[in-house]
Each structure stands twice: as C-alpha cells, then as structure tokens.
C-alpha cells in the first residue's frame, strides 16, 4: 500500500530532523499513517481520498517536524523578545544619528553639493538602520536556537528594578558602550584608510598605512564585528563565562598578532604624518619610537582585555 503521497509526506517531515532520529520517526510515522488509512478504508472510503484526508489532517509537515525536533516556530520567542526590542531601540537611537552625522560631516568637508549631502545622509542612515535591525535580529534568532540548556531565566522580582548592580561587565550599558565604541572606531578606521584623519598642509594624511586596504582592513573590520557580537552575547547571558572569555582571547590574538607583524614590517603606521609634522630629519626617529610605543600598546591592551574578561567570568560565576 506504499504510495507516493505518503512517501513524499514522510520525507518532507523527516528531512529536517537530526540524522539519528530520521529513520525511527519515518518508520513510526509511516505505520501510523497506514493505520489511519486502513481505518478509513474499512469505513468505506476510497483509497486516494482516504490517503488525502489522513495527510491533510496531519497538516503542514514542517509543523510536525518542528514538534518532533522540539524546534521553535518563531524567530525570537518570549524569552528574548523584550531584550531584543530594548537593544534594537537603543542601537537605532544611538548609532543611526552618529552614522548620519559622520556622513554629513564628511560630505560637507569634501565640498559636496547640498543635494548630495542630504541624499547620502538619508541613504546611509537608512542602510545603517536596516543593517542594525538585520544583524541584531540574526544574533538573537541564533541565540534562541542555540541555547539548548534553556538557561533558566531568573524570575522577575522587585530587586530587578533598575538599580545599582554589582559590576559584572555584562550590563546593558557595558555592551552598548563597547558596541558604540567599536562602531566609532570602525568608522574612524575606514575614514583614515579612504581619506585620512588629519588635514595637514593642504592635504589629508592617514595615521595608518594605506596599504592595509582592502585585505588587512577587511580582516580588522570582521574581527571588530565579531567582537561586537561577543559583547551582545555576553549581555544576553548576563555574564562573562570562561567559554566567552576564551573566544575573547582568540579575537584578541587574531587582531594583535597580525598587527604586531605588520608593525615590525613597517606596514602598519603611515610614516607620512610624522615625517610631515616633525621637520629636520627627526621624523624618522620619532616614527621609530612611536612604532615601539604602538607595539607595547597593542600587547598591553590585548593582554589586559583578555585577563579582564577572565576576571569578570570568575567574579560572576
């Protein structure tokens, strides 16, 4: 009594299930469907109609599959919805105006016509808003699906009214400050690469070597984005964990090691700025000292950030 509708239905249900469940569910479901069809045939139904009726009653195979796999049928459920909404609102309020302001300023400095200034400001504002909404939602949707332990949400009590909490580095404000800082740094970096941060003797000069564009620059921007995601995850978990601190360490190494290597190859900082500011051939010397200080700073910041995240993880255990 094998028939194509049943086969297709069973396949549609099981194809998204974990491998080890698939065969078992398929066999059981096929037997159940056959039982139901048989019942209808005994009651005098026609074979085709019986099969159709049974499958129609079982409904959308994706819904059934979600039931078997215990998967949510929503993008962001009640566990995370409020956090998602609060975060998105805040990000939109803070980042969109900043980005729009930056673009407007840049266009004005570049002497663009008023129409172009307005147009690109609105354009960038819109696309930043769309990106914020998309990536924030994506992160939350992933967390919603990956939190297998269903980390127990502590029930709300009056103690959770906005008040002073022990510092865990995982408060909303910590996350927002980090994310905003990263965004500003990323904008400054791109600006420095494309235009130059300082205006000296009639031209824009970059702090960092322009040869970083596009590959090294892209790598750095991806690392910054990963760092932002990490900050959001820390906030959602309400604390630093050792696993998150380890991820943070990896990110620090991924940024610091190439940066130090580039620095040692004299490919990180741009000598132009220093050679221009400091005359009489002393520029070269200053640039050397500056490179050394930069190297120390890179190591120091990476090391401190790593240690700090582990300390926070231990404190909030």
């Amino acid at each position, binding site marked *: 009594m094998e028939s194509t509708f049943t086969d297709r239905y069973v396949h549609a249900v099981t194809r998204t299930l974990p491998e080890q469940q698939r065969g078992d569910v398929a066999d059981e479901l096929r037997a159940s469907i056959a*039982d139901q069809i048989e019942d209808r045939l005994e009651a005098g139904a026609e074979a085709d109609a019986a099969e159709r009726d049974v499958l129609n009653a079982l409904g959308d195979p994706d819904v059934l599959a979600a039931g078997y796999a215990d998967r949510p049928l929503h993008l962001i459920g009640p566990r995370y919805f409020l956090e998602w909404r609060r975060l998105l609102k805040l990000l939109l309020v803070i980042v969109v105006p900043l980005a729009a302001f930056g673009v407007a300023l840049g266009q004005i400095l570049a002497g663009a016509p008023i129409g172009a200034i307005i147009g690109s400001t609105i354009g960038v504002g819109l696309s930043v808003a769309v990106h914020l909404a998309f990536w924030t939602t994506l992160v939350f949707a992933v967390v919603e699906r990956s939190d297998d332990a269903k980390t127990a949400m502590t029930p709300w009590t009056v103690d959770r009214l906005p008040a002073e909490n022990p510092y865990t580095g995982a408060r909303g404000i910590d996350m927002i400050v980090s994310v905003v800082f990263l965004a500003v740094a990323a904008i400054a970096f791109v600006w420095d690469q494309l235009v130059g941060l300082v205006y000296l003797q009639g031209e824009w000069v970059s702090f960092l070597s322009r040869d970083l564009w596009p590959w090294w620059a892209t790598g750095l921007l991806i690392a910054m984005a990963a760092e932002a995601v990490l900050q959001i995850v820390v906030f959602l978990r309400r604390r630093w964990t050792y696993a998150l601190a380890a991820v943070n360490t990896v990110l620090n190494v991924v940024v610091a090691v190439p940066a130090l290597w580039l620095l040692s190859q004299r490919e990180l900082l741009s000598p132009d700025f220093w050679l221009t500011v400091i005359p009489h051939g002393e520029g070269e010397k200053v640039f050397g000292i500056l490179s050394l200080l930069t190297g120390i700073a890179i190591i120091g910041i990476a090391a401190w950030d790593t240690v700090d995240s582990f300390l926070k993880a231990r404190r909030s255990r």
Partner: protein
Amino acid sequence: MAEKEALETHRQELRRGTVVLACLRLLVESGYGYGLLEQLQSRGFETDANTLYPLLRRLEKQGHLTSEWNTGEARPRKFYRTSPEGLRLAQQLTEDFRAIAAAVEALPGDR
C-alpha cells in the same frame, strides 16, 4: 466568529495538560501511536494526531515512557509503555487534577 474562536482557544487551553495525563495512564498497557489516538478519542480526550506523535517522543525523551519496536506483526509498530518515573508523574498529575476539580466544584457561579 471571533467569539467562537476565543471559546475554542479557552477550551483547548483547559484540555492541554490532560492529554499528557491520559497518555501516561493509558500506556500502563503498552500501545502504539494510532491505537492510542483512538483510545484517547473514544475516552473523550480530543487529540490531534499531529500533536500526539511528537508528544510521545517528548515524553520518551524525558524518560516518562519507554519504547520498543514490535516487528512480529505484518506492520512493524513502535510500542510505548509508561516507565516507573512516568507512573509517578501520572500519579502527581492525577492528584493535581482532582484538587483542581474539587476547587472548581467549590466555586460560586455555577447555575
């Protein structure tokens, strides 16, 4: 129409937990998916196939049911049986249900 839907939602919510209770107690004697569905329906527990089948899996995963394939008959079927742990849960749920029924009985407002 909206009124009818609201009524249906309320009734569904009231029934929801009772299906688990009924499954756990019926499966004291081992049974398979569709057979159990028919038993439930004939005993007055309105249940849909597409909620019952995943529910059985979930209860099994939680350790309240055990299962075993019976390949002796013409059609191989997966048979479920309530585990000792499941029996304890059934006991607890039954007591709770009685307490709720008694509490409802004692409410004013019944014609």
